[in-house]
């Protein structure tokens, strides 16, 4: 202080340039992202495993892939070029639609990173967010794309091919990551600006998923529609160094220039939209809690539930809410079931991991029946498997974490582990079970030609899997998140990704024999009782035994749970 010259405010520092600020914030943001990934062996495993899987498919280890296309290049270069162009178009569209989902999540108010904004500009934070998204996309998909480009070059005997294929594919990833952020900001602006509840956020997610599925199933149509547009020049960029494919240098250059311009425009749009979304009045909406210095602004509006803090609540009295359940279970268990339903209705975020099961079901239907060898008789089995898997994909996958801050109240209520596990299982199975059974019966009836034995076997298969789902997911879920004090201070957690993955793998393994038995009928049009009932019988027996073991394990873990 004493060193400050007269008239100069002591402690004043020169504001760094935008570039310097952006670099600093970007470095911190990216380092945080990479450390987060590195610090979790499971997350590293998932990223590496995902890359290996995608790489194996793209390279051609599981069927025809980049390597085989490379081999075919010498004989039919034009056909190979055309194949690459169409694949690139579909890939760009699918990745872009997927990125929009992530963008809607990345653009929430809490990503303003207030700590940075007190020291630097919004533009620097937006720039860092864009780079973070690009890096995340490159980490998740980059190695697989580079492997595919390399495999193509090896197959073609043309090392130069790998250059445009690899660099071009990575550039397309970056472009899609940047282009989609404005969408995410607009989505959040709509949700926050119009004071919509978290249900609306989920609704938007469902719409985007719907677009994703439509694109997935109509990929040939999408590729045809885009073939006459400048988007098709992606093919020229990718094929630029691939000999004999007729790639146009002007088109490739135009695409690069155009995409750079679009990326720049998207960045500018992000800046404007970020100002609108992150600093609008509703985001800073005054509540008592703000006045008392209680929760942070982002926590109130963009936090756990994302609902308007002053939403009037219109619900039936609690004492009547779970009353209808009391014929199924004890009043105390019924109270826990009713509590879970009410909270799920207000925090649908816990249903997030239901969507992969829905995706699996749709992909199975598309791959096995629509474009595969099975008849429509396979649909009920697909509904039974995917529906049952979905039943266990919500709050049962994280019975501790989804209690959030209230966990100590539940644990010290004397309810006990057994009652908690039963309540969570019922909360999932009571609405989910009838939906799955209804789906199986409804589709079975609509098909009209299924023999009663096949329909009954499918029904038993679905019911066994629903029972297993509600308990097996809890047996896995009690291990996630791991015992940690943070659990008490954190908000409601969505099910852990690793738990979701293990659960899906386990459900698939148990479902496989029954699926094979039912598939035999869908394939041959006539059923062999031994194969049908043998397969379904194995699944039902294993599901029953595993459900019992899961129940015991989950209860034991909950009873022994210690807040550390």
């Amino acid at each position: 202080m004493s060193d400050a010259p007269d008239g100069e405010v002591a402690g004043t520092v020169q504001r760094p340039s935008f570039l310097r600020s952006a670099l600093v914030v970007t470095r911190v943001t990216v380092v945080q992202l990479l450390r987060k990934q590195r610090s979790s062996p499971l997350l590293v495993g998932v990223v590496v495993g995902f890359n290996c899987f995608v790489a194996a498919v793209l390279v051609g280890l599981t069927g025809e892939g980049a390597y085989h296309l490379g081999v075919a290049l010498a004989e039919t270069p034009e056909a190979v070029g055309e194949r690459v162009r169409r694949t690139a178009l579909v890939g760009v569209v699918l990745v872009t639609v997927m990125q929009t989902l992530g963008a809607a999540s990345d653009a929430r108010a809490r990503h303003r990173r207030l700590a940075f904004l007190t020291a630097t500009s919004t533009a620097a934070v937006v720039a860092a967010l864009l780079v973070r998204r690009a890096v995340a996309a490159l980490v998740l998909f980059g190695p697989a794309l580079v492997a595919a480009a390399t495999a193509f070059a090896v197959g073609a005997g043309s090392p130069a091919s790998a250059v445009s294929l690899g660099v071009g594919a990575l550039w397309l990833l970056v472009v899609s990551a940047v282009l989609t952020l404005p969408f995410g900001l607009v989505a959040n602006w709509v949700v926050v600006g119009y004071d919509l509840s978290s249900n609306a956020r989920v609704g938007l997610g469902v719409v985007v998923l719907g677009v994703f599925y439509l694109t997935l199933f109509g990929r040939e149509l999408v590729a045809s529609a885009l073939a006459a547009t400048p988007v098709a020049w992606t093919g020229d960029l990718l094929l630029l160094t691939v000999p004999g494919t007729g790639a146009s240098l002007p088109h490739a250059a135009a695409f690069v220039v155009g995409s750079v311009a679009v990326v720049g425009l998207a960045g500018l749009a992000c800046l404007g939209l970020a100002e609108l979304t992150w600093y609008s009045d509703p985001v800073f909406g005054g509540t008592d809690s703000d006045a008392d210095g209680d929760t942070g602004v982002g926590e109130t509006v963009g936090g756990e539930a994302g609902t308007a803090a002053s939403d009037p609540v219109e619900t039936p009295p609690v004492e009547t809410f779970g009353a209808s359940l009391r014929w199924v279970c004890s009043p105390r268990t019924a109270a826990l079931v009713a509590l879970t339903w009410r909270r799920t209705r207000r925090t649908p975020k816990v249903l997030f991991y239901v969507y992969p099961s829905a995706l699996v079901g749709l992909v199975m239907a598309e791959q096995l029946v629509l474009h595969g060898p099975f008849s429509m008789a396979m649909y009920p089995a697909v509904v039974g498997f995917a529906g049952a898997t979905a039943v266990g994909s919500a709050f049962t996958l994280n019975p501790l974490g989804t209690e959030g801050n209230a966990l100590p109240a539940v644990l010290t209520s004397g309810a006990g582990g057994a009652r908690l596990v039963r309540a969570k299982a019922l909360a999932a199975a009571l609405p989910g079970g009838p939906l799955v059974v209804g789906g199986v019966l409804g589709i079975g009836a609509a098909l009209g030609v299924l023999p009663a034995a096949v329909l009954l076997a499918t029904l038993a298969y679905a019911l066994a899997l629903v029972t297993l789902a509600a308990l097996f997911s809890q047996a896995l879920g009690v291990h996630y998140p791991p015992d940690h004090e943070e659990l008490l201070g954190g908000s409601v957690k969505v099910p852990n990704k690793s738990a979701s993955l293990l659960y899906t793998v386990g459900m698939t393994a148990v479902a496989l024999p029954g699926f094979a038995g039912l598939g035999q009928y869908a394939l041959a049009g006539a059923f062999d009782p031994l194969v049908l009932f043998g397969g379904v019988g194995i699944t039902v027996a294993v599901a029953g035994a595993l459900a019992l073991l899961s129940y015991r394990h989950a209860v034991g873990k909950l009873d022994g749970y210690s807040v550390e």
Partner: protein
Amino acid sequence: MAVIETSGLTKRYGETAAVEGLDLTVERGTIYGFLGPNGAGKTTTMRLLTGLTRPSGGAATVAGVDVRERDRLGERIGYAPDEPPLYETLTAREQLAAIADVRGLDPDEKRERIPELLDRFGLDAADDRIESYSKGMKQKTSVVQAVLHRPAVVFLDEPTGGLDPNAARTMKELLVELRAGGTTVFLSTHVLPVVEELADTVGLLYDGQLLAEDDPGALQRRLAGDSLEDAFVELTTEGAAADAAGRR
């Protein structure tokens, strides 16, 4: 008659002992002020006594129940931790009714107690979602939740934190009433005047060990201080801690 008894109660995290050989006796129908500097192990002790955390060694019973039997223990205790254990998307009325139902409280008693306690604490926003509450309002809801079922022992961690003077007075009146009704109140707080005014016994925890235990007046006289604050400061400075450990 002792309602809380611990013998050599210990909780270790690896090499670090959060609570070390704690011997504690708390009589029925009293208010026990549990003091200690930050990191002394107060919260860990409360979690051990409420069954949330498993002890590494020693024994403890609360209302005649081993703390390892969490389900039975839960029927006899109420706990309001520092971080209010509430479902943010419920209203206070829904939260209290839900926990009362989970505890198996008689429906008539529930219908009587919830409005009474809400009214007493002036929780006018009982039908708004908890996520919109201030820290003080959450704290009130948490305390009401802890006492709703008339437990034998109530554990309160900083119950007056974030409360305005009116609510703090209501809270103190409630604690005195609970004591009069035979409930034991185990109170952890940094607000020493509250302990000085209400507590029958004060226990001072330092580095996971009980340094001193007496009634507030006796503790002051013993350490020749003018107030409980003086006694607290004297005991918890490192040199005093060593002296006190030697005296015990």
